[in-house]
C-alpha cells in the first residue's frame, strides 16, 4: 500500500537564495510526522509547498496518489493546512469565522465544532478582535479538527497555547491519527516533537537523517521559565537565543524566574556581595533573568567569582538585545 504523502526531491528557492533543496520523505495514514528545525531552517517554506501555497520548482509531491503538479485541486481536497498566522476576520465572531472557512472546504454544518471548541475552552460567540493570541490559535486548531481530511499540516501549532491546551491539542492530534489522518507538524519546540511517531530534522533547507528526541536534546540548553501560575520548559540551541525567547514569553506575563540547565562545565560560581548590590539596582522583574544569565556567562567564561563588572557586562548584553 502506498504512503499518503510522498515527497521526492522537492526544491524551492526564494529569490534571496534561501529555501529547501532535495527534500524526500513519505508519511502514511495514521502517522504523526514532525519536521523539526531551528528558525530559518526552511520549515515554513516546506510546509507552504506541502500546503500547495507555492509550487515546487523541482521534485514531486503526491497526496494519496494525486500529484500536486498535475492536479493541485485534488490535493487541496485532501489536506487542511494551518499556517503560523492566525488568519481570521477580526470583526466576526469565532463561530462566524469557523463557518466561513469551513464552507471553503464544503463543510456547511460542522457538527463537532462546539464540542471541539469546548475541549479547547474557547468561546465561539465572542468577536475575534477580542480574542487573545492563544484563543485565535485555538480557533484555527478547532477548524482544523472540524474537517475530516486525509492530511493535516500544522506550522508551529502550539504558538501561544499554554501547557494545558498543548496537551489538548496533542490528544486531538492522536485522535485524528487514529482515525486515519496523516499529521505533519513543523516546529522548533522539542516538547511538540515528543508526540510524533517520527522526527525529520530540517537544517539549512535539507533533511538530515531521522533524529530521536534524545539526539535532539543532547547539546541543547534546557530553560525552565516560571510565569505567575505555570512553568514552561524550552530548549534552545545557544544562550544567545534566550533574549528572543524571553521577548516571546513576555506576551504571556513577566517571568518570575528563569533557570538555565547545567552544561556540564562543572565550574563553581561564587557571588560577591558587591555583585549582589549591583544586581539589586536592576528592575525587579529582570533580576532573576540577569542572575541566570550571569551564572551562565560565568560558566562559559570560566569566572569563579562574579564581580560587579560581570553583572554590568551581562546587563549590557541583555539590555542591548
Amino acid at each position, binding site marked *: 500500500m502506498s504512503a499518503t504523502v510522498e515527497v521526492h526531491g522537492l526544491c524551492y528557492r526564494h529569490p534571496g537564495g534561501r529555501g529547501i533543496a532535495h527534500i524526500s520523505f513519505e508519511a502514511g495514514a495514521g502517522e504523526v510526522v514532525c519536521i523539526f528545525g531551528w528558525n530559518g531552517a526552511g520549515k515554513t517554506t516546506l510546509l507552504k509547498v506541502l500546503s*500547495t501555497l507555492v509550487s515546487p520548482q523541482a521534485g514531486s509531491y503526491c497526496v494519496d496518489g494525486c500529484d500536486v503538479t498535475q492536479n493541485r485541486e485534488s490535493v487541496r481536497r485532501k489536506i487542511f493546512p494551518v499556517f503560523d498566522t*492566525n488568519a*481570521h*476576520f477580526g470583526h466576526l465572531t469565532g463561530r462566524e*469565522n469557523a*463557518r*466561513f472557512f469551513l464552507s*471553503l472546504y464544503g463543510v456547511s454544518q460542522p457538527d463537532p465544532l462546539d464540542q471541539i471548541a469546548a475541549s479547547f475552552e474557547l468561546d465561539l460567540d465572542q468577536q475575534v478582535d477580542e480574542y487573545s493570541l492563544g484563543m485565535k490559535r485555538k480557533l484555527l486548531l478547532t477548524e482544523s479538527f472540524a474537517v475530516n481530511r486525509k492530511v493535516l499540516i500544522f506550522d508551529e501549532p502550539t504558538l501561544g497555547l499554554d501547557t494545558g491546551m498543548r496537551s489538548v491539542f496533542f490528544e486531538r492530534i492522536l485522535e485524528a491519527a487514529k482515525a486515519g489522518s496523516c499529521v505533519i507538524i513543523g516546529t522548533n519546540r522539542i516538547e511538540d516533537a515528543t508526540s510524533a511517531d517520527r522526527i525529520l530534522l530540517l537544517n539549512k533547507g535539507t533533511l538530515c537523517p531521522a533524529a530521536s528526541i534524545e539526539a535532539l536534546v543532547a547539546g541543547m540548553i534546557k530553560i525552565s521559565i516560571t510565569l505567575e501560575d505555570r512553568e514552561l520548559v524550552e530548549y534552545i540551541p545557544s544562550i544567545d537565543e534566550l533574549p528572543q525567547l524571553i521577548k516571546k514569553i513576555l506576551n504571556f506575563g513577566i517571568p518570575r524566574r528563569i533557570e538555565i540547565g547545567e552544561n556540564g562545565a562543572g565550574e563553581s560560581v561564587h557571588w560577591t556581595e558587591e555583585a549582589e548590590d549591583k544586581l539589586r539596582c536592576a528592575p525587579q522583574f529582570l533580576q532573576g533573568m540577569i542572575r541566570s544569565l550571569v551564572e551562565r556567562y560565568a560558566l562559559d567564561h570560566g569566572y569563579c567569582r562574579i564581580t560587579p563588572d560581570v553583572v554590568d557586562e551581562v546587563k549590557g548584553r541583555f539590555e542591548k538585545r
Partner: protein
Amino acid sequence: MMIMNFRALAGQTLLRIIAKAAVSLLFVGLAAVVSREGIALAIMIIFTGVTGPTIRLDTMKMDGIYDRIIVSPTSKSRFFLGFAGHWVIAVHLPLIPAIAVVLILKGPVTIIFIILGTVLAVALGTLAGVVSRGLSEAHLAALLTSGLLIPLSLIRTPVAGFIPYTNISAPSFEPAALIAAAILPAIAIVVLALAVSRS
C-alpha cells in the same frame, strides 16, 4: 450565510454605510445644482468600486486570510466572482440616495449603466487586488485604474462609448449603447475569472 459572507468579504458596517450615504448624497446633491450629478456619481462609483475591493483583498493578504482561501479546495473563479458580487452590493448600498437623485434627473434606465459601471470598477479593483503584492502596490494599482477610467469616460473619444460611466452622465438609451456599455464589464469579469482560476 450570504449575509455573513457579505460582512466577511465586503467588511462593511451599518455606521460606515450611513456615513458614506450622507457624504455621497451631499456630493451628488451639490453637483446636481450645476447639472453634473451624473459625473459626480460616476466618479464615486469608480473610486469606491476600484479601491474598495483592492484594499480589502490586500488587507486579507496581510492577515493571511487570502492564503487560507487560496489553499482551500473551493473554486477560485467562483469565490472571486462571488467576492466581486458582494462588492457590487457594497458599493451600491451607501449610494442608494445618490443613485435615486440621478435616476430622478436622468431617467430610470440609467440604473443599467450604473450597475454596469459598478461591475466594471469592482472587477478591475478585484483584479488589481489579486495581482498586487503589498499595500503600496495595491494603492498604486487602484489609483492607476480609477485615474484611467475617469478621463476615459469624460473625454469624448471613440472609447467613451464603451465606458458605462459616459452613459451615467449623458445617458443614451439606444440598444447599441447598452450593448457597447456591457462589453467592457463582461470582458473584465472573464479576465478576472481566468486570472484567478490558476491560483
